[in-house]
């Protein structure tokens, strides 16, 4: 009996190996305080992969296999998911968590598997000469911080020297990322910055918003995620903070974040690095081949939401990189090393996106060995509570590279020194 039990346990603990497809693990979180944001992203990611399988027969004739693994936004489970899936020929990791990304940077580099932290993760990974396997195109947190300040500059005719700006942030590696940039920018533009950390998961923000009510900063910037976004927007409404002076990073700009506050959330702004809405040809295909065929991930009710679009965009960039790699090496099956090279030579053009059914969806950019972060273009979206939709109120505009580049060089060089990496192209 004991032997049977032990062998049953052993069999259950080891996941079975898979056939040679293009394997894209999806480290998702559909449970816990971050699920409201994790679900649409993961649905979009998986649905796009399903669409390619159903419509085109995979990428270049090779089927895609998505292995979903629940992390709950928890780094320990993230590590377990990484270890459980890497043996199955995983080509690329997109953990959708800055904490897990930090965890995976050394591990994935040692294992030679690329990581794409799209708009999150370690910002200095933009320096591809140090972070060979880590990519964060098309934009990163420091770009985002700079976008927010640029937007404020534009709203105030370029003079923000006597403004007070507050940063409400998730008290974790994620939320702390923009601080250094905002401090540098404050030296340049002269605004006064106050920092208000919110402990995870962020349901309790009374004291932070009391402080905002007392100090009345001219603008509030938010780096929030999960339940923290909804609570922050509700608290801002409660203290009657002017919503059009409240700017969230792209992770604080989904429908789930503003809907609970109802009409009062009207005018709230959030950054984005791709277009929003469901007015694209690809959605017709998604509906036809995935949703109507009953193959949608999750409940299939997230189509067209901001984070669904972002998950789909992440999947699109991943599969386009795989296609680039297939062309480069003239092969169908890919190794993680080939996938990495494909990502490093990825070029997104308008023609390419239009052919994929996503015309004018994201900015054009080109990844190079020394620049893993793209051009850092971003735009500002505003919430229309009556129409229940986001609309872009600006064009894509660049970040302040003059301030950011020295920061990126300094941080990546510090990492290179700590880990004995000689910077250079592979």
């Amino acid at each position, binding site marked *: 009996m004991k032997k049977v039990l032990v062998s049953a*346990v052993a069999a259950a603990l080891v996941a079975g190996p898979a056939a040679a497809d293009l394997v894209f693990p999806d480290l998702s979180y559909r*449970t816990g305080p971050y699920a409201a944001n994790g679900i649409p992203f993961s649905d979009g990611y998986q649905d796009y992969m399903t669409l390619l399988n159903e419509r085109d027969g995979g990428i270049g004739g090779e089927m895609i296999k998505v292995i979903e693994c629940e992390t709950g936004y928890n780094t320990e489970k993230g590590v*377990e998911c990484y*270890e*459980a899936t890497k043996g199955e020929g995983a080509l690329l990791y997109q953990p959708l968590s800055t904490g897990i990304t930090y965890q995976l940077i050394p591990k994935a580099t040692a294992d030679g598997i690329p990581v794409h932290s799209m708009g999150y993760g370690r910002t200095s990974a933009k320096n591809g000469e140090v972070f060979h396997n880590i990519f964060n195109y098309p934009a990163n947190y420091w770009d985002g911080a700079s976008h927010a300040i640029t937007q404020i500059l534009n709203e105030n005719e370029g003079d923000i020297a006597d403004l007070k700006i507050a940063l409400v942030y998730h008290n*974790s590696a994620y939320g*702390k*990322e923009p*601080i250094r940039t905002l401090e540098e920018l404050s030296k340049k533009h002269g605004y006064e910055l106050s920092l208000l950390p919110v402990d*995870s998961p962020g349901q309790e923000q009374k004291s932070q918003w009391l402080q905002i009510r007392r100090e009345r900063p001219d603008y509030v910037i938010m780096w929030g995620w999960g339940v923290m976004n909804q609570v922050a927007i509700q608290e801002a409404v409660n203290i009657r903070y002017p919503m059009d002076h409240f700017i969230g990073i792209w992770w604080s700009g989904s429908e789930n974040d503003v809907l609970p506050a109802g009409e009062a959330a009207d005018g709230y702004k959030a950054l984005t690095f791709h277009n929003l809405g469901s007015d694209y040809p690809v959605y017709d295909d998604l509906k036809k081949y995935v949703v109507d065929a009953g193959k949608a991930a999750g409940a299939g009710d997230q189509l067209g939401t901001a984070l669904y679009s972002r998950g789909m965009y992440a999947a699109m960039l991943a599969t386009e990189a795989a296609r680039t790699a297939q062309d480069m090496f003239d092969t169908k099956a890919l190794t993680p090393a080939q996938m990495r090279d494909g990502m490093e030579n990825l070029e997104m053009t308008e023609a390419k996106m239009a052919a994929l059914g996503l015309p004018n969806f994201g900015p054009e950019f080109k990844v190079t060995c020394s620049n893993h972060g793209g051009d850092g273009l971003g735009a500002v979206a505003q919430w229309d509570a009556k129409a229940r939709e986001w609309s872009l109120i600006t064009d894509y505009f660049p970040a302040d590279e003059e301030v950011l580049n020295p920061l990126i060089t300094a941080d990546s060089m510090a990492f290179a020194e700590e880990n004995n990496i000689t910077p250079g192209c592979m």
Partner: protein
Amino acid sequence: MLYREAGDFKTSYEEDSQTFPIRFDRLAYHGALVVAFAIVPFFINDYWANAVALPFLIYAIAAIGLNILVGFCGQVSLGTGGFMAVGAYATYKLMTAFPEVNIFFHVLIAGGITALVGMLFGLPSLRIKGFYLAVATLAAQFFLVWLFNRVPWFYNHSASGQISAPERTVIGVPVTGPHTEAWATYLFCLVFLAGSALIARNLTRGATGRKWMAIRDMDIAAEIIGVNPLRAKLSAFAVSSFFIGIAGALFFSVYLGAVEVGEAFGINKSFLVLFMVIIGGLGRIFGSLAGAAFLVLLPVLLKNTLVGTLGWPTDLAAHLEIMIVGALIVIFLVAEPHGLAQLWRITKEKLRLWPFPH
């Protein structure tokens, strides 16, 4: 049949008071040690090490530490997460400040630093007990997490507030950093667990342990018969924090490699380790191991069964996992309030009588 005392004669006091008086137990114990040290390292892979073995070994050390305080000395503590954070940040500061010193000693010194911090936060136990002490240690938990978040010196002023372990070796073999082999990290943690369990077992059955238990059972009576409550309580806090600090150090440096204090060492960690101690069995070293195994292995097992074997959606599996683990905890505690260790003891009693129970 298997489990017999007959014929196993003790001819000296040492033999009579050994940890495993029954020969079968002794053999099983030595067998387990041989398997753990000499056979498992040859078969272990990255997945087994990082998803199963390392968390089990490290939580077991933490549970042994907490068991000394709660199970043996009767002082309730909710500060485990904070004390693990002290161990983690102490190793980080030591690793980066003295890179030439062997990581083995860093981990031990980190344990020592945690012992000092633990004694400091143990001082209130001289005046308050029970729930009130739990609240005082809860303050330690929140204070320590806040401290490591707030003071940049602790994380060497890194932009993200994360600490990450650089590569360190033991006799030429890397045990921290990304280029580690599964067997190396496993053996490194196993050595610490074996050492901790041995020390804890021998402390708890000697004079020190008896003083702790006297304090636990009735502190006034203990004081009357000559147990110094100051020394007994503070020594329990020190020894307990020492082990918890080692667990925190290994958790950060060997297992995760990069941590963020709020997420890795939050209040949830304190509760998790406390549950391990309660489910495993208060005041039993074996209970700490069993409790850690239960709470580390069961979720992984359930996840792999539900998602890997049955192919259920991951969110359903994750919710079911919470429900099943929760239900099992309740069932276990109703069926056997003294934990897995007591279940094991009853099984042994039955085995000794089998096949002729009275």
